[in-house]
């Protein structure tokens, strides 16, 4: 066993190569779009619109041309000739564009041509070299990565510069205060994050609470029509949300609930319930009967049995449902669009607004999208087990 792997193991390894290839390619196809979003959200706006996100680790503009035309004399770092140190901002400042650069390259130095045997670069190449020199001399070195997009997205900055620069220079846009209160600017993702949270938490707790009650009744209490009522409930799970929007928004208009959080909480509760009850009833129904028998024999009432026995035991089901409902409500656009709209914008609403109205650039859009994905991702990756379990138990809600 020690040392050399057996022939079988080697064969098994090579036999599996197509499998590995297929699995890894699919995984890559699945993850690359998201990686693109993430990388882009950290790039400065000029770079986002000039080069694809996959070039982010390639050498900066002009680096190749520098190596071809200049590196042999000036050295790879530009410091080889002390009298013509290319990292000296004072020197590089004199040649900001290709025009000055080419003019200088055509001049003789100490009676010999500047470039020696090397041909002159083209105008485009000279421009690239010039921008490369500005980078290495520190005159203008745009960073590869920045968090400005996130700052701008959070505070809802829509100017042509960045929020931090505008605030530092003192000429901020009208709706920006340049202090912590900007995080709650109604146009920003910071406020939208808070709104999403306010919508999601009660809209996840309420249906689970009601479903625990109803699930208990369906699983362990006897009443007339128990069976058929539950069958109807199974049918209700697939009723499309769209069916109910108009009547509810008309009712809400009369009751003054349009544009309120309460209206959205109740709506999500109503639509979360059929699935939640279904899952809860199936879970509670699978608990051992002896448990309830002995509890009732000991004189426990149905209520004692419910909160001392059912609630603690149902925790796995409650966790599954909680994640489901949380993701569902957090990611919902339609309900938020119809009942909250722009009065209390949530994250999905803000992003869809940025997408459909032209104007917000990719740098803001990608940062906002990633901000909205942050919490679901954390919930998902930390509680994936419960999520999968809940899905396997129900597998119908969509």
């Amino acid at each position, binding site marked *: 066993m020690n040392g050399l792997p057996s022939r079988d193991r080697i064969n098994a390894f090579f036999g*599996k190569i197509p499998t*590995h290839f*297929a*699995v890894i390619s*699919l*995984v890559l196809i*699945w993850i690359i*779009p*998201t990686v693109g979003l993430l990388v882009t959200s950290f790039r400065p706006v000029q770079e986002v*619109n000039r*080069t*694809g*996100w996959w070039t982010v680790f390639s050498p900066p503009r002009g680096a190749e041309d520098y190596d071809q035309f200049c590196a042999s004399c000036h050295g790879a770092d530009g410091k080889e000739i002390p009298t013509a140190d290319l990292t000296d901002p004072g020197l590089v400042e004199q040649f900001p564009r290709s025009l000055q650069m080419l003019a200088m390259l055509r001049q003789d130095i100490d009676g010999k041509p500047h470039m020696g045997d090397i041909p002159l670069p083209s105008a485009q190449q000279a421009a690239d070299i010039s921008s490369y020199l500005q980078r290495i001399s520190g005159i203008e070195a745009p960073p590869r990565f920045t968090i400005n997009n996130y700052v701008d997205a959070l505070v809802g900055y829509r100017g042509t510069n960045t929020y931090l620069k505008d605030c530092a220079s003192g000429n901020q846009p009208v709706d920006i205060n340049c202090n912590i209160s900007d995080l709650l600017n109604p146009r920003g993702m910071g406020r939208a994050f808070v709104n999403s949270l306010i919508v999601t938490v009660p809209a996840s707790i309420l249906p689970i*609470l009601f*479903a625990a*009650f*109803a699930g208990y*009744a369906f699983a362990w*209490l*006897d*009443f007339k029509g128990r069976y058929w009522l*539950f069958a109807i409930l*199974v*049918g*209700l*799970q*697939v*009723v*499309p949300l*769209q*069916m*109910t929007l*108009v*009547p509810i928004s008309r009712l809400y208009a009369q009751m003054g609930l349009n544009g309120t959080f309460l209206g959205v909480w109740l709506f999500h509760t*109503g*639509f979360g*319930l059929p699935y939640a*009850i279904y899952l809860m009833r199936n879970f509670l*129904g699978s608990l051992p009967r002896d448990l309830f028998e002995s509890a009732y024999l000991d004189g426990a*009432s149905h209520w004692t049995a419910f909160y001392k026995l059912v609630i603690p035991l149902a925790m796995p089901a409650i966790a599954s449902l909680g994640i489901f409902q949380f*993701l569902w409500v*957090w*990611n*919902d*656009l*339609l309900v938020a*669009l119809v009942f909250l709209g722009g009065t209390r914008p949530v994250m*999905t609403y803000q992003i869809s607004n940025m*997408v*459909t109205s032209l104007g917000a650039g*990719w740098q803001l859009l*990608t940062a906002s*999208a990633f901000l*909205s994905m942050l919490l*679901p*991702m954390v919930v998902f990756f930390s509680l*994936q087990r419960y999520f999968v379990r809940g*899905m396997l138990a129900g597998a*119908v809600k*969509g």
Partner: protein
Amino acid sequence: MAKRTVPQIMRQGRLAPWLYLAPALVVMTFFIVYPMVNTIYLSFLNKNGTAPASATCVESRPCWGIFENYHYALTAELNFDSVRTAWNSFWVSSYGNNVKWIILMVTGTVVIGLAFAVLADRVKYEALAKSIIFMPMAISFVGAGVIWKFVYDYGTQNVQIGLLNAIITALGGKPVAWLSTPQINTIALIVVGVWMWTGFSMTILSAALKAVPTEIIEAARVDGASEWKVFASIMVPIILPTITVVVTTMVINVLKLFDIVYVMTGGNFGTEVIANRMYTEMYKNFNVGRGTAVAVVLIIAIIPFIYFNIQRFLEQEEIR
């Protein structure tokens, strides 16, 4: 159906069960049952629900009387000049697009999901690979819309910052306007749907595959069946009920699908689907009658699946 016997322990008084049920029943009646009835009623009225739909009929045009909104919902996108125009216009209408969505998205998610479930079962990093395929389930349709809009970006002649067009131009091709070229754009949107939902079918099918008894598979292998044969004639038939569940769930999802289309194209350039059309009628054209009629068409399309779901539930109850 056999009358189920109720265990003695469940007799806890007449009123108690209904107290437990009351909150859920009240909320569901208010938010699901009542609106459904009301929607059906509104679909027979005019624009703002003040007169019967027949009042909106125009002289010398075909009219379906009280069903005028349905007349609009079903035929407005079609062109009946000839059989040929009717056929062509169907395939760019919301109904034709929904048919495309159903066929391609169901096939895509089930085939890729099943293939991945089988393949990932043979590698050590199965859990990691599966969570990556599954991850889009945690993202909103809006977020996915942004991610893919970026992939599909149609840049200028010189610069392609969209991955797909960058690949095409690097290979010497001409960039494609993925989201505004009819026919191509619907496919491009369906790809997003497949990307989002394959994780769902993969997870469910994978659990079903793992539940297939190993003895049966081993026995077949001993008898000399090839891996493909084992998969096609043993595994697939055993998990067929699960595949059916995934397919029906997916069809329901597709019929209700709204966000991807709303965010990525707004239903323009021939990408309209039923759910988005309903939204447009109701909240952009403010025509309640027509909007609700489209909604009723949607529920009619879903009724078979409601029936299927209840049927499946009843069968499961028989087994329990």
